[in-house]
């Protein structure tokens, strides 16, 4: 078990992070090159001010008409997204690993809080699952891939929670957790999870067109 653990937390982690950072860089570079090649007018209309104006409105809970129309979804999705990033980044056990490997460290969350945040992420995933199964307008455009990416996101948090509490099969759970985390990292640039990166660009462009050209609000 130790050998397996050393392998997944060693070489496989390298692979995962290289694919994550490299993959993200690759996709963004390809996007910009494609814009330059086919639709360079986009550069003409992009505006820092209007991009940020739009992004800030949408990054504020209830800051837009559509957030206000869906108060429960807004609260869940903001909570979910903040926790899904903050938990792995500021978890003490993760930071210890960084310190042991690369001698870098930063502020960490109290474990109790991280525990709550993990549960919030899992609850969020359940909310999204139920929503996808129940709301007709979401169900209509849902396919297997939507459930797959939801599982990819839920898995590291479920296995992480179980591993932390050491309720059962701790060594196996640890290994599963590391692998689940790596699967998510690699999936981000190459699946719809890439909305993490691309939504900034699409939002910025729409904000620019609506703000600079159309003189209208896009929220």
């Amino acid at each position, binding site marked *: 078990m130790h050998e397996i653990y050393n392998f997944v937390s060693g070489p496989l982690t390298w692979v995962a992070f290289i694919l994550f950072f490299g993959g993200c860089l690759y996709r963004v570079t390809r996007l910009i090159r494609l814009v330059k090649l*086919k639709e360079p007018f986009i550069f003409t209309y992009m505006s820092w001010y209007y991009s940020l104006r*739009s992004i800030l409105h*949408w990054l504020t809970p209830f800051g837009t008409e559509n957030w206000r129309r*869906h108060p429960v979804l807004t609260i869940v999705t903001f909570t979910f997204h903040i926790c899904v990033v903050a938990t792995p980044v500021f978890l003490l056990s993760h930071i210890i690993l960084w310190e042991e490997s690369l001698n870098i460290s930063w502020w960490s969350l109290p474990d109790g809080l991280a525990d709550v945040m993990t549960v919030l992420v899992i609850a969020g995933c359940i909310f999204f699952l139920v929503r996808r199964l129940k709301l*007709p*307008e979401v169900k209509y455009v849902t396919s297997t891939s939507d459930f797959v990416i939801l599982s990819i996101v839920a898995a590291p948090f479920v296995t992480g929670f179980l591993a932390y509490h050491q309720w059962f099969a701790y060594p196996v759970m640890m290994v599963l957790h590391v692998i689940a985390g790596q699967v998510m990292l690699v999936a981000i640039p190459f699946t719809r999870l890439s*909305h993490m990166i691309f939504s900034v660009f699409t939002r910025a462009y729409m904000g620019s067109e609506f703000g600079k050209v*159309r003189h*209208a609000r*896009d929220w």
Partner: protein
Amino acid sequence: MAEPAEVNGEKSKTALDDGIEIGAARLTPEKIEKVINSVIKGETGARLKTYVETCIHCGLCSEACHYYLSHDNDPKFAPVGKVKQTMWEMLNKKGRVDQEFIKRAAEIAHTECNLCKRCAQYCPFGIDIAYIISVVRRIIHRLGVTPLYLQDTAHSHSVHMNQMWVKGDEWPDTLQWQEEEAQAEIPTLRIPLEKEGADIMYSVIAPEPKFQAQLIYQAAVIMDAAGVSWTMPATIGWDNSDMAMFTGDNELMGRLKRTHFETAFRLKVKKIVMGECGHAFRSVYDMGNRWLGWKMPPLPIVHAIEFYYDLLKEGKIKITKKYDKPVTLHDPCNVVRGGGLHEMARYVAAAVCEEVVEMTPNREHNYCCCAGGGVINCGPPYKMKRINGNRVKAEQLFAAKARGAKVLIAPCHNCHSGLHDIVHHYDIGLDIKFFGDLIYECMEKPEAVEA
């Protein structure tokens, strides 16, 4: 139009539109595949790819769409639902779709979406679903399956540079006729034709001379009273409308706008003022000009709303007695969501009318009238699509009427016609007016003689 089309010697079932039926009947699987891939690979780029790949299938765009809301939240009418039935299928099958699919895609793209861009406002990622639908229209155009009535207007554009088959000297004839009519009221009024060096070239959409000539009359009276230096061309290039923009015929759109701009250049005017139209504004402001390579239009384009705002603010037009019936203002998609003219429109309404009742939602969040985006131009076969697809508009208007509105201001020709159909069908009982109608009725006409 009610007879079923005969295709390959067989009468087809309930053929709603010959353009779609006969066009589709000419297609082969090879041609379909070739054209779809040619458009997607050859003509689209980062936008289509990123929009389709980033969409997280959340369905939040649904409540933006009047079709979705009016069809009792039927997911097939949600913006993402419409993309699923068209673009997703084309992409997933790599263009290998059949005739029936193409017919349905043509119907969805041309009669179940107004390209109003309300969905882009509601999507958390700012995905431009209207753009995706317009790519579907481009594919349908290249396959030759555009709905008949809409394609006919494109043909008219191609032959006469206007959408209403107004031929040659019918245009200056119409202007001179309206000038004569107006001279009965204001003997000194002229519609200056081909006046080089005037400040303003006034342009209209082709339906105006065809069946709304009194709008030209009214505009001439407003120009005359305001004492502006203006002209209209006697040649082609007078029509600012653009149905080619809605059929996906970008090349024709380019020809039309080039002719329009070059006519203005020829007359050496400082700016183009256009009548109360929505889509024409879109065409000159951020579609046709871009196709021709201009970041912004090559000379200032002033929409009628802004023009009236300027005239009223500068006191060039004086209102003798305000319009006394309570009005409500419809914000047309293309000039409000598309041009930010909502506050100027409110200034004009307040200046001319005693009481303005706001409908809700309003401004950029107003519901589309369901006529724009070429949908009303698909003609009688699809009228009920617009009526059934915009019950929320009827509800919105009823609510405004309950708050006291008696008159509906619709500063856009298509909105006017579309709202008229809705008001009539749902028996709402609101008179529909242009700003020009109200200003003409309430303004001071210094040179007018007693009737």
